[in-house]
């Protein structure tokens, strides 16, 4: 198809012979790619299937409005943990998305070549290796000890520490990948740098930005350690100035229990956590993904 419009040139052979070395190499590489992609997908789907199988058994409406059961109760749910996760991850996104994207704009466009940008880039890369438990220890020292209280606020701040570098580094790459011609065109029309950023570069980079945000949210939503040191857990409904329940800590608590009911809930909670991220992914793509190049 790609080589079909050349009749007038009378090139010797436009059809490629399958056993010509170059074509052969291409075929071999394609097969390897397909094989290894399929091979790599097997464990991924195996994890997903295990999750759906074990979590799906317990899916019911009760999960969303009931409070967590104690060791010997049957039934129960984790409505409070869903709310707590929504609140804390939402707060963390509220902090980290503007933070990450604005800093990324500076790294990728405005201060591309200066020292500050380079140092900041290394700082962000270093922060990606921050173990989640350290984010918790830090937020404990910086927020909980000062407020003298566990709270959803502290939890959100701890999670934002994990999200900032992910949002920032993916956003930087996404912005950098916007073709120079588009930027030049915007300048050529008399745009200020801000206008070209807001009206051209960011919309074009949007799919990449969303990937970064979704990955960051996905990571933050499943992290236990930061919340264990900042939000603790609660068996009651959400109060943002008090210890707060979250799905991640619920999974951590219940998956380690010997009680069947709680273990089932831990699996169901894992599944719902993944579904929540899935829904976020779809919504954000529906909102932000319309403008595609």
């Amino acid at each position, binding site marked *: 198809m790609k080589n079909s419009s050349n009749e007038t040139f009378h090139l010797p052979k436009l059809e490629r012979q399958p056993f010509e070395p170059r074509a052969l190499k291409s075929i071999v590489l394609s097969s390897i790619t397909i094989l290894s992609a399929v091979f790599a997908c097997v464990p991924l789907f195996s994890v997903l299937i295990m999750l759906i199988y074990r979590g799906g058994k317990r899916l019911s409406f009760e999960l969303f409005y009931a409070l967590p059961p104690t060791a010997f109760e049957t039934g129960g749910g984790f409505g409070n943990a869903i*709310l707590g996760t929504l609140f804390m991850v939402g707060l963390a996104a509220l902090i980290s998305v503007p933070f990450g994207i604005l800093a990324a704009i500076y790294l990728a466009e405005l201060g591309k070549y200066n020292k500050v940008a380079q140092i900041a880039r290394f700082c962000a890369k270093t922060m990606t290796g921050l173990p989640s438990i350290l984010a918790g220890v830090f937020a404990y020292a910086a927020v909980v000890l000062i407020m003298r209280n*566990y709270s959803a606020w502290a939890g959100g701040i701890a999670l934002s520490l994990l999200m900032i570098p992910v949002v920032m580094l993916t956003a930087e790459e996404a912005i950098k990948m916007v073709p120079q011609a588009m930027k030049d065109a915007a300048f050529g029309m008399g745009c200020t740098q801000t206008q070209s950023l807001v009206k051209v570069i960011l919309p074009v980079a949007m799919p990449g930005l969303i990937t970064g945000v979704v990955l960051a949210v996905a990571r933050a939503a499943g992290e236990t350690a930061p919340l264990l*040191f900042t939000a603790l*857990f609660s*068996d009651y409904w*959400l109060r943002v100035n008090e210890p707060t329940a979250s799905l991640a800590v619920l999974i951590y608590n219940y998956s*380690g229990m*010997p*009680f069947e009911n709680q273990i089932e809930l831990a699996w169901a909670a894992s599944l719902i956590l993944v579904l929540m991220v899935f829904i976020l992914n779809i919504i954000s793509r529906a909102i932000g993904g319309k403008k595609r190049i």
Partner: protein
Amino acid sequence: MKMKSLLQVVATGAAVALFVLPAAASEVRLTGSGASFPAPIYTTWFKQFTRANKGIQVNYQAKGSGAGIRDFMNHTVDFAASDAAMKDEEIAKVAEGVQLLPMTAGEIVLAYNLDGVKGLNLPRSVYPGIFLGKIKKWNDPAIVAANPGVTLPDEEITVVTRADSSGTTFVFTKHLCAISPDFESGPGTGKTVNWPSEAKMVKAPKNDGVTATIKQTPGAIGYIEYGFARMSKLEMASLENKEGHFVAPGLEGGQAALANAVIPENMIVWLPDPAGVDSYPMATYTWMMFYKKYDSPEKAEALRKMVIYCLDEGQKIADKAGYIPLPANVVEKVRAASANIQ
């Protein structure tokens, strides 16, 4: 630009979540953190207590005894719980004073995975040897001698220990040190110890990790809490006590062990090797820590109420949950001491 609308969605969602919830009435809310060993029974107690007492709400999060003590010393919680009590120098750092109260007790068992072998007897000369790596096979003559009529396989023993730092390890190693001089001069007592490399050793985090590893590894043995082993239906070994009797883990053996200990003024007592014919050799109390002086009298009153509830109602479910109820004389002592919480 579009990111903003995404943010608005998130923000609105969060705001709605806030307003939907009922505003806080004049309630006393208590927060505790610490030991994970008694967490199942504590959370049950606290939920029932909260239900029975309008206007008081108790929250407990298991994050480890050490973390609980740190929280307690940093005043980020109202009370804490610990399997290893609290050290004197730690107590000295709390200006308000500390009241420790034993709230329940538990047993540590040796759970194993051997096809078709039930109720294994382990003499006190043997099980320290297993954990020291000196006894390596299940059909070791010393084990066979203690189990007449049982066919033991010619299989290597895989020893499963805790990977994380834990109060369970502390109690277990304290017991091993009390009965085996070799163990005392070797690994010693601690929340984590350096297990000898002679044994075929696997480490797993937390009780559930050890439980899963034992279940997954034929020929494995490991130490876990009684409640855990019972709920997960693992086989547990009967251990030889100080008087030379083999006692299976369970309520009777545990209560007999506790009956032999006298609780001192500071409420801290260890049972590294309890006397008594019927005593199961590895039992331990677990504590809650309170300040002696609280800023708000309502809080102190609620905490006292909570302690009394745990003593009266709470002990009734202890056995069902896999813990040992406190002996009657200890209950009275704790009740009296709870008056120190002011």
